[in-house]
């Protein structure tokens, strides 16, 4: 009996701590239709700010509350800055770009936190009054836990009353429901939106301060909370306070049951519960209108005109690049060759991401899960079952990636909303990370090391053990896959994807199975990503949990955006350019997140067409300046962009 009570109590406490983070997340989604991927990072900043105010010693209750409020206010100011610099510029673009921007913002924040507060774990005691147990009937519980539960309830009640009873809340709701009309009625819409962003960020900072003594403080703090807050909000129905509240409590219960029933695998039940829940009730507990309508997705994309430079020029250029790459094992040193090979793999990986984004109009934020799937599969097979032919392993990896993509896609895409896919892919990569860290076969936290390189047994044996041989193998395989994809994307299949991307409703009206096409694209994308991973394992000869980290999932997004998502070749170009940037900044150790995040943010805000987009505009300007109004028909299609209208 006592045990059940205790479990229930813990469930409530965990649920309330999730809700404290989810509250701001759901508020900003409800009003701005913006899924803020950086909410967890700002929550973490709140915790660090409170830590800076409090120090590590014990403090009085009042001072603790003040510190939490102070953290909230400072984060609210950061919210205002974020709104001015980033969010206001993205009010009218495709929501995927907003997702990418806030994702980049999260990386910038994580990088900044490491820079300012370091990477060590610190722990902070609750204020003295809360730092002792209290007897509830026959149960001993910590006062701090009681405080968290109370804080969650108070925040919930205040938000409910403010939004539904107070005039201010009704104004906010009016803004959320129809900001166009609100403007016509003379309401200062930009101010209202900025205020709601600030309130949401305030809640994140406040939660950071309040939950600071709950666990040790480290730059990873934001990740897990963000994910659970996402889950709570999805279970509850996006943009709905009550939903987030109930969803958080449910998650607390599930997690508590997990501890009681499956103590060996902490944290796994939540993922299972989310998957089951989404399968049974994809709209969430309290479906809101906000998520029903799918925003038009062609605004931010910007289609590219065909390049005016003839196809022959591009073909010669492509051959030259290929010949250069092929010659590298003959003259490049081991380090450079490794970078070149990794760039090929990253290029393929980015290409797989962009099949989903550039062609199907859906963004995955956990694409590393597929890559890691392939990498771990290939690594394990090569280590434990060397007799399996490597080409079969590659095919197996592709099939496995496609199968997992099918399951995730079937769960997420039934709702016709890319936001679900974004969250579920993040969840997938986290679930993978948790699972791998429990598996002794996959090396837990240490990863798979000393992966042998394969020997191909065609009618004749090809030994790929040497770096040069494996590099050539990489080059040929990548080129073959890219060629097949190029052919697919420029044929009927690619056109079908684009038609769904541009106007899903019209495509559905014309008899296209929109959900099916999207799931198919996701499977193709996941399969190719897994093959890229499988190619990578024997090249790097080590596969670790880094492969499923956020950073790994951002890499294809960044490479594709950098090169240009509206061009077939953009992701490959972006990967090459990023390798150069990375090589140039390799001395700035520990800044990778900051650099990656900043570049990504910069691209989204300034040049959403990426390098190809910039080049194409420059080309157009150049031709215009020369007065050459050459007939468009005379210009052969630039690779990739040609299929765009």
């Amino acid at each position, binding site marked *: 009996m006592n045990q059940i009570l205790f479990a229930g109590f813990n469930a409530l406490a965990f649920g309330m701590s999730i809700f404290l983070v989810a509250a701001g997340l759901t508020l900003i989604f409800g009003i701005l239709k913006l899924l803020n991927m950086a909410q967890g990072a700002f929550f973490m900043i709140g915790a660090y700010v409170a830590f800076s105010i409090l120090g590590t010693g014990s403090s009085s209750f009042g001072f603790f509350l003040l510190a939490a409020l102070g953290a909230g206010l400072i984060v609210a100011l950061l919210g205002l800055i974020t709104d001015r610099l980033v969010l206001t510029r993205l009010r009218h673009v495709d929501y995927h770009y907003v997702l990418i921007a806030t994702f980049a913002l999260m990386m910038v924040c994580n990088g900044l936190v490491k820079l300012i507060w370091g990477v060590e774990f610190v722990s902070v005691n609750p204020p003295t009054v809360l730092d002792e147990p209290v007897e509830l009937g026959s149960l001993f519980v910590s006062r701090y836990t009681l405080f968290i539960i109370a804080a969650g309830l108070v925040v919930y009640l205040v938000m409910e009353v403010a939004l539904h009873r107070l005039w201010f809340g*009704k*104004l906010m*709701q*009016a803004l959320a*429901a*129809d900001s*166009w*009309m*609100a*403007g*016509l*009625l*003379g*309401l*200062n*819409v*930009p101010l209202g939106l900025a205020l709601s962003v600030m309130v949401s960020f305030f809640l994140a900072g406040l939660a950071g301060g309040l939950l600071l003594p709950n666990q040790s403080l480290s730059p990873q703090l934001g990740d897990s909370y963000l994910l659970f807050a996402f889950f709570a909000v999805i279970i509850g129905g996006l943009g709905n306070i009550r939903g987030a509240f109930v969803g958080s409590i449910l998650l607390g219960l599930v997690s508590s049951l997990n501890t009681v029933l499956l103590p060996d695998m902490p944290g796994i039940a939540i993922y299972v519960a989310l998957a089951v829940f989404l399968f049974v009730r994809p709209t969430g507990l309290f479906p809101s209108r906000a998520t029903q309508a799918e925003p038009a997705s062609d605004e931010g994309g910007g289609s590219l005109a065909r390049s005016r430079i003839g196809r022959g020029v591009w073909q010669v250029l492509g051959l030259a690049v290929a010949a250069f790459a092929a010659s590298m094992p003959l003259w490049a040193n081991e380090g450079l060759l490794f970078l070149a090979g990794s760039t090929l793999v990253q290029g393929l990986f980015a290409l797989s991401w962009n099949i989903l984004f550039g062609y199907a109009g859906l963004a995955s934020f956990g694409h590393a899960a597929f890559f890691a799937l392939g990498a771990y599969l290939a690594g394990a097979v090569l280590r434990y079952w060397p007799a399996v032919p490597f080409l079969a392993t590659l095919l197996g990896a592709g099939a496995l990636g496609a199968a997992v993509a099918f399951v995730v896609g079937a769960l997420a895409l039934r709702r016709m909303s890319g936001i679900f896919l974004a969250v579920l892919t993040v969840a997938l990569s986290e679930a993978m990370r948790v699972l791998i860290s429990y598996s002794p076969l996959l090396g837990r936290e240490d990863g798979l090391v000393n992966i042998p390189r394969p020997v191909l047994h065609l009618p004749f044996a090809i030994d790929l053990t040497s770096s040069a041989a494996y590099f050539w193998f990489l080059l040929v395989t990548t080129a073959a896959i890219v060629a097949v994809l190029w052919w697919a994307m420029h044929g009927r299949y690619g056109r079908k994807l684009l038609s769904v991307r541009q106007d899903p409703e019209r495509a559905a009206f014309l008899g296209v199975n929109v959900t099916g096409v999207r799931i198919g694209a996701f499977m193709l994308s996941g399969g190719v990503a897994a093959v890229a991973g499988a190619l990578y394992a024997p090249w790097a000869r080590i596969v670790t949990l880094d492969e499923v980290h956020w950073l790994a999932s951002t890499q294809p997004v960044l490479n594709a955006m950098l090169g240009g998502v509206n061009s077939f070749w953009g992701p490959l170009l972006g990967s090459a350019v990023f390798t150069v940037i990375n090589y140039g900044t390799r001395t700035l150790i520990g800044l990778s997140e900051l650099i990656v995040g900043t570049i990504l943010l910069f691209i989204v805000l300034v040049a959403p067409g990426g390098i190809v987009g910039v080049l194409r505009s420059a080309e157009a300007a150049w031709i215009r300046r020369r007065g050459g109004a050459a007939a468009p028909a005379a210009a052969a299609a630039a690779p990739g962009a040609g299929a765009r209208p």
Partner: protein
Amino acid sequence: MLEVAHLDAFYGDGQILHAIALDAAEGERVAVLGRNGAGKSTLLKSLMNAGPRVAGAIRFDGRLLAEMPSYRRAQLGLALVPEDRRIYSHLTVLENIAIARYGAAGRKAMEPRQILERFSMLKPLEERYGGQLSGGQQQLLAVGRAFAAGPRLLLLDEPTEGLAPVIVEQMAREIAAICDEEKVGLVLCEQNIWFARACTSRLYLIDTGRIVFSGGWDEFDRNADLKQRYLAV
């Protein structure tokens, strides 16, 4: 009070309005008539900077509005009642009117309850939520709501659409009366010629984005072919 010169308006790359010239003096009431798709709604939205991309000069009280956002225009005294009404479903009738007070920005305006008295059909619905009104009731509420901002120039986009003839007559009297009392100007886009005539003193005809006629109602009546050419379907 309102002077529009050489106004072009675009949706994306498509030009919808071409070199529109239009004006309304203080307290003057004018109608804009035209077929479906002629550009009436686009014209009103252009005046509010609420949708189409606009080039040309819009002056209000002699002041160029240029890039001013729509909420600032509303605060200057321009009030648009859009054709799709846009009543807030989470607010009651009274609250829907009250929310428009922000547009008054310090000007004297009718109290929400006064407005309910004037539009007597709304009176019994005071506590009803916007989402629970019929289309016609929403239409009335949308017009009533606009007066809560104490507007100086009202922009009405087909306010009679979907209303019963009796209600239309009542509304014509009501609008004319309030506009006279409060010295409110009016730009009325309509297809209902009877209603437009009852509310205004002169008119513009708009066809495929161009003003094709401007003058008094007498002149309009004398040229019977105008109606034939620009309004008949």
